[in-house]
């Protein structure tokens, strides 16, 4: 076992919370290393609907969360506009919905500081032409869309530019304790295939839904509730802004347009493990049927795929919240909690940050790093709320932005992905930056995300990987066609439960391309390790 490095703080978890913690530490001049078991954003941060919360969803029952959301919504628009689509949102009242709830909703928003505007039926339809004709009333709120991978990359780049380090594919495997302190963490270098230690003064557990496992390795009990949410991806946007049902949160009450698709969400079910991301087909049907009440065109639309994510819900010791597996987890507050394991468990140098949600990731980081800094004797105040992220000078993300870019550069002939407007230049840059897997290209560039679901782009990108590798394009796992097969099978896992109608035709045509024309026989069976490494986020 070799000693990898020494640092002041080890941050565990490469989701938005962990990366936000790393950036906060970097801005305060603290040396820190983040370790992540897969790639950045492969847990909950990559498996969600992409809603920048206004807080209105929590305005009736969870006003603490609602206030956190609207504060951070405003902050993120300032420091990370390039990751945000400023599309606004509506809460719509359908026949059968309770008008008394609408009144509570308006009052809750007012009390939480969320600006709302009541729209008449006609005004709502002018804004969202595909809304159901029987929508009676709507409230406009400052919801938005946010691209978590873009946010992750910006925060990580900022932290790295300030001297902190990010180690992906380094799962935590243990902690070395000396009395009441952790002296080092053990990680497994998945690429080199060996364990290493990182000597440290402090540990921040930001593993989200997996915080309990990190706690177990450190010897402290943390009870997380795995709250699974299923989401359905439709092949076009349908709506200009976010559309929510104005009722007590329930399955299938939100439509978030994102890039070229719309995401329908979500269920909220307690499951035994955060790694349970299976998609029950009945959930897909329910989501479509419920969302079609708000936007009827969804009922006959093309479903691209479905996926599930695991909410990082924290079960506090004292009051019994949450319930048995199978129960609804909507009653668990979406606010966050800092656990100081010194006072709580007698472990002197570890904090955990649990609960919360993507919209509040920066505030969560600030809260835990404030506590840590106090104990470390670091007096530099938090500046993450005012210091813009790299890329912030580009303004908010416009859905037509990629098209404008392609038109400006006259790069049509350079497109390798027509759905998501990804050019050969972008893929070349990503390959030059060291990406070797199609899955990584997908998270970076959205290759394979669009309505054709990789019928054309994946093999073009595989060709570019092959050209880049040259003679090194050998047989075995590193072979570009083996990588392509892994990619296709990984994509398929999220598709086959949602295929009928036009999408069935698309699937069989894609099959006729890959198996029929190109004669890929699927012999490069992805092994378990490769499948685990390529496990990735959605959304």
């Amino acid at each position, binding site marked *: 076992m070799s000693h990898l490095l020494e640092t002041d703080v080890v941050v565990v978890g490469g989701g938005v919370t962990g990366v936000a913690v790393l950036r906060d530490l970097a801005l305060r001049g603290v040396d820190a290393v983040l370790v992540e078991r897969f790639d950045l954003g492969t847990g909950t941060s990559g498996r969600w609907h992409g809603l920048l919360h206004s807080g209105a969803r929590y305005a009736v029952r969870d006003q603490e969360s609602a206030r956190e959301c609207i504060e951070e919504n405003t902050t993120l628009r300032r420091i990370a506009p390039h990751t945000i689509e400023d599309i606004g949102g509506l809460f719509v009242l359908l026949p059968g919905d309770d008008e008394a709830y609408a009144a509570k909703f308006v009052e809750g928003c007012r009390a939480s500081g969320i600006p709302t505007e009541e729209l008449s039926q006609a005004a709502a339809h002018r804004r969202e032409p595909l809304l159901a004709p029987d929508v009676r009333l709507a409230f406009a709120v400052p919801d938005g869309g946010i691209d978590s991978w873009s946010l992750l990359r910006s925060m990580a780049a900022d932290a790295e530019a300030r001297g902190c380090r990010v180690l992906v594919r380094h799962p935590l495997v243990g902690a070395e304790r000396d009395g009441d302190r952790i002296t080092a963490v053990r990680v497994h270098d998945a690429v080199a295939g060996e364990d290493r230690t990182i000597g440290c003064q402090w540990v921040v557990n930001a593993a989200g839904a997996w915080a309990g496992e990190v706690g177990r390795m450190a010897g402290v009990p943390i009870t997380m509730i795995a709250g699974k949410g299923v989401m359905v991806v439709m092949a076009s946007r349908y709506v200009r802004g976010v559309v929510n049902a104005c009722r007590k949160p329930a399955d299938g009450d939100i439509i978030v347009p994102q890039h070229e698709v719309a995401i329908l969400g979500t269920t909220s079910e307690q499951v035994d493990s955060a790694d349970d991301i299976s998609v029950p087909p009945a959930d897909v049907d329910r989501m479509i049927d419920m969302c079609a009440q708000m936007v009827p065109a969804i009922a006959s639309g093309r479903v691209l795929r479905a996926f599930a994510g695991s909410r990082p819900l924290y079960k506090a010791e004292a009051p019994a919240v949450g319930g048995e597996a199978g129960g609804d987890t909507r009653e668990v507050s979406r606010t966050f909690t800092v656990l100081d394991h010194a006072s709580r468990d007698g472990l002197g140098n570890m904090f955990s940050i649990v609960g919360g949600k993507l919209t509040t990731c920066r505030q969560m980081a600030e809260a835990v790093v404030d506590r840590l800094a106090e104990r470390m004797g670091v007096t530099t105040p938090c500046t993450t709320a005012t210091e813009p992220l790299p890329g912030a000078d580009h303004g908010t993300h416009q859905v037509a932005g990629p098209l404008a870019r392609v038109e400006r550069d006259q790069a049509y002939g350079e497109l390798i992905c027509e759905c998501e407007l990804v050019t050969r230049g972008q893929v070349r840059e990503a390959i030059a930056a060291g990406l070797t897997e199609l899955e990584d290209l997908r998270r970076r560039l959205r290759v394979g995300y669009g309505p054709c679901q990789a019928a054309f782009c994946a093999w*073009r990108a595989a*060709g570019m990987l*092959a050209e880049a590798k040259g003679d090194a394009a050998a047989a075995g796992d590193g072979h570009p066609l083996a990588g392509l097969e892994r990619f296709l099978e990984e994509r398929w896992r999220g598709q086959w439960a949602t295929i009928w109608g036009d999408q*069935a035709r698309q699937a069989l045509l894609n099959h006729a391309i890959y198996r029929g024309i190109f004669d890929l026989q699927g012999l490069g069976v992805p092994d378990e390790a490769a499948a685990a490494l390529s496990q990735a986020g959605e959304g």
Partner: protein
Amino acid sequence: MRADVVVVGAGPAGLAAATRLAEAGRQVLLLARGNGFTHWGPGAVDVLGRVGGEPVDQPLAAIDRLPEGHPYHLVGREAVRDGLDWFSRFSAGAGLPHIGDPEHNRAQVTAFGTLRPTCLLPEPAAGVLQGRVAVVNVAGFRDFSPGLCAARLREAGIDATPASAPLPAWDHDRYFTGVELARAIDDAGFRSRLAPGLARAAAGADTVVVPAVLGLNRGHEPWADLQAQVGTPLVEAATAPPSIPGLRLFAAYRSRLEALGVRWQFGFPAVGVERDRDRVTAVQSEGASRVLSTHCQELVLATGGVAGNGIEANRDGTLSEKVAGLPVQGFDGRLAYLGPRFLGEHPLAAAGVRVDAELRPVGPDGEPVAANIRCVGGLLAAHDPTIEGSREGVALATAARVAALLAATPSALRGANLEPPGPPAR
């Protein structure tokens, strides 16, 4: 409107059936929603490429190993042979000669460097990869990767090296698709500028693999001319859709159908039928803002399976035939449609209409549900064209069968197009 026979669908089966029926003197109306599998396929005539996952050497002989109910069993081996013979004559007459022998499969090189088993290949794709092989792209054409192709060919023991030929100056320097490149290569001047660079990239090679883009509207002439200028055999590799060899073939069918006086309605899908007891009396199709009825004696459905849009796969696992509402065996819910691996087999691909030996659709009891509907090609149940590699073979064999069945039927409207067919289209 009236027609003797209405053929619905312009894929490999509908085009062959319409042509053969018109050649037999029937007055034909061809209705099509849009382009069919000619535009999607690899540009080959697959008869039977694999049985049980294993490559087949003798496709006609291997028919015996197919399961009961397969379209080949219904029409018989002679219809398969007849279909292929007819196609060879037709394609040669149209300036697109195909090479191959129904008794033995051959290998078609693909853009991935795989060698897919097939039966007949258009001349430009039919060359054998001998000696040193150069895999050459035209610089800037994004749908072909010589590195990917050559890497796989080397694994198959072929001495292949990737190379690139410069793109001659033309008016599409920033933006071109395979179709545009193929159209440019139709031009003799462009070819003479392309040839020297291609020859340099091919220097020292015994065979040159190129993407299948060597000409669009002039048959195989641009390929032959370029090959003569380069001085080395050129072999076109199968690329992704749209298939340029398929576009060449489609154009040849279209010329032939026009010469035969076949009426052609493209972009107006058939949406229903009118019936009198067990006979269809008319086909309804979408017209400009209204539904049109065409009265007919016979209806030939060549609308394809689920992939071809002849059958709708519903959310609840039931399947609907989209023109005549013919019975189609459904599934126990939609999860049974597809297999757990994308590159594996998918039951839905083999779903279709069950027919009797005269290609008439039958109900669950095996009795025909209509006396004058015939089904051909991908619409038929009990075969998976992709997994088996049987698409064009089934299309041509069932078109041969339907031509034999319907040519003999006396026609009330005969005489409408009895003038002899014109010279072969080029």
